[in-house]
């Protein structure tokens, strides 16, 4: 078990005369025992990064450290890391027992009976004891997955590297294994780098998430930070399902308003301060924060200036919640509302985009210039209760 550090790691491939930068100056520090998820769309360089840590790819520039030892120039055999492959990569001619013992036989001088014991203990932990004498071809996908995990665990390596290990499983088994993997990682307390393209896996499994796009590191943060305080437009769009709604707007400093094709959105002073002298912006609101206001009681904490009349296009009921797609002028966006709130397709409704929940990005660089802060969420809740009380008082006086 060890901390893992990537220090300005770059990987360039030569493709004929073209040079392709697969990983561009990535630096990440992974603490001892931490579960870090590397996530990004396909071709973002996450697998290449993992393979460089494993030693299966050379690094063009930069260094990799396990604790304080540089390992970038060691062959994979001498790095003491274990990897779980997407294809499982079990040795087809060996039994499960032989598959699991292989690493111990090759990398340690452990006597045979000790190896046997270790393999059996690990198999017990993973509940695959009864499969020990079978060959991989006789196992189901889920069982092969467990054996692949067992082969990594049994070696007790400095770090686990996992390359989309769950992507070949069906949906139900995948969510089971997700929980089990987290439990195992927690129990074993081994530093783990987990590569996936699935943002749900990233959000639910990682202590921290590292988001890559085009070979560049976009953000390294806890799942909630990535969700609430994305570093840029890419992270904002990648994390969260459905994706964040975005509107191209220009900032009008004279009126303190955002002006888009279809919306005008006045801003409070604190948000204006964040904008500075930028003018071309992108306004983002998560579908979960978009509220469809119906009756008068819904409107109580709503700011009329932040309300817009929209047409309901499609309603996707999910049981606990509904995803509603609406159009504002020719701009379409999504709202997630409680499952019991009934909305009819085709009718006109009013949506509220609360200012406390908006994100602003620089349209040119994509960089976040204003995020909702978690304190702001609390404040918002407080304020709305206050407003409610005020309104109530008002009503009474009326």
């Amino acid at each position: 078990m060890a901390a893992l550090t990537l220090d300005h790691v770059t990987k360039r491939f030569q493709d004929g005369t073209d040079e392709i930068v697969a990983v561009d100056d990535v630096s990440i520090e992974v603490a001892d025992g931490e579960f870090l998820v590397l996530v990004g769309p396909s071709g973002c360089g996450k697998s290449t990064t993992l393979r460089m840590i494993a030693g299966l790819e050379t690094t063009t520039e930069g260094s990799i450290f396990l604790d304080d030892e540089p390992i970038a120039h060691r062959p994979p055999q001498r790095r003491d890391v274990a990897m779980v492959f997407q294809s499982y990569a079990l040795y087809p001619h060996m039994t499960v027992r032989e598959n699991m013992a292989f690493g111990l036989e090759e990398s340690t001088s452990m006597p045979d009976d000790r190896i046997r014991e270790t393999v059996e203990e690990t198999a017990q932990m993973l509940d695959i004891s009864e499969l020990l004498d079978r060959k991989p071809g006789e196992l189901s996908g889920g069982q092969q997955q467990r054996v692949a995990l067992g082969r990594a665990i049994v070696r007790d390596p400095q770090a686990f590297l996992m390359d989309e290990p769950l992507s070949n499983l069906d949906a139900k088994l995948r969510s089971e294994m997700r929980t089990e993997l987290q439990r195992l990682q927690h129990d074993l307390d081994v530093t783990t780098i987990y590569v996936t393209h699935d943002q749900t896996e990233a959000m639910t499994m990682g202590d921290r998430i590292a988001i890559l796009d085009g070979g560049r590191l976009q953000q390294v943060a806890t799942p909630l930070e990535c969700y609430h305080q994305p570093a840029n437009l890419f992270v904002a769009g990648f994390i969260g399902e459905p994706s964040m709604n975005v509107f191209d707007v220009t900032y009008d400093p004279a009126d303190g308003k955002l002006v888009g094709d279809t919306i005008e959105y006045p801003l409070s002073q604190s948000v204006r301060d964040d904008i500075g002298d930028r003018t071309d912006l992108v306004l983002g609101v998560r579908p979960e924060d978009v509220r469809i206001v119906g009756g008068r009681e819904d409107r109580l904490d709503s700011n009329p200036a932040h309300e817009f009349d929209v047409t309901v296009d499609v309603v996707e009921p999910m049981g606990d919640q509904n995803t509603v797609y609406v159009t504002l002028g020719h701009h379409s966006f999504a709202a997630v509302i409680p499952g019991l709130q009934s909305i009819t397709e085709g009718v006109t409704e009013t949506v509220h985009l609360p200012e406390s929940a908006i994100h602003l990005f620089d349209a040119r660089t994509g960089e976040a210039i204003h995020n909702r802060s978690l304190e702001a969420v609390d404040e918002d809740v407080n304020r709305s209760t206050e407003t409610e009380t005020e309104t109530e008082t008002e009503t009474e006086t009326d």
Partner: protein
Amino acid sequence: MGTGESTTTEAATETESARARATRGLDRVGGRRIALYLVLLALIVLYLSPLWSGFTTSLKTAAGFATTTPITPPLPEYVTTEAWLEAWGRMRFAMVNSLVFVLPATVLSAFLGSLAAYGLTKIDWRGQIAILLLFLIGVFIPYQSVLVPLRQFWTIVDLPSLLAFSSTLAARSDLIALAITHTAYGIPICTILFRGYYLTIDDDIVEAAKLDGASSIRIYRRIILPLSKPMFAVTLIYQFTNIWNDLLFALVLVRTSRNFVATQALNELQGAMVGQYNLQMAGAFIVALPTLIIYVVFGSQFAKGLSGESGG
């Protein structure tokens, strides 16, 4: 019960209707089918006739093969196993010679081909393409074109004097030269065959083994070699047959008659004055026997290897 009955009835109805169809279409369909079988039968007779006449001839006395056609089965008064016994007696030493050089040449060329293919597919190094190209060219060099340089090479490399420390080895140096020549000549085709097979083995397996701490040689020994069984069957059969049946290299490289290989000994059975056909035929069968045995023994593995299934 119910379902069983209905199935039986259905089957009965089906058979009936099939029979009816068959009767109706007998003239048309049946006629065509009979013609097809006749043609097939004729082809079988055509293909088997050399083998058959060879076999009958080998069992006939001199008077037998002189007075009857080759296709006629040996008549009781002409039957003899003398030709087989004589052929065996005169060729036994050559069969042993052949086995002694063919087996190592076969195994070595297959093994070295497999190693080379492993290096060309699962290990990264510069200049692979150039080496692969050399192997490909090696496959297409005809035997005839290398005869003179080959003879010259084995004259320059004076094997008998190199092996002078052991009189047995020195005396058998022709066979050793033959084994080395066939090994070298067989490596390119074996490499190409193994290469195609290794390309189908998932690279992830090799990478997993690397991370498990295994060196390249250990990976070959413990992962690649055990997975290569079907392709070994293919190359072993192919090489054994090729090397066993070769006469050309033997004629050029074997200088003393005690080192004659089976194909040369068979050639010697051809008398200068009188054609002893029964003897030659029996000899031909004896020479062909080992390759047949190899096919039977490795047959199922051979089929697997050709279909590109990886073992496991």
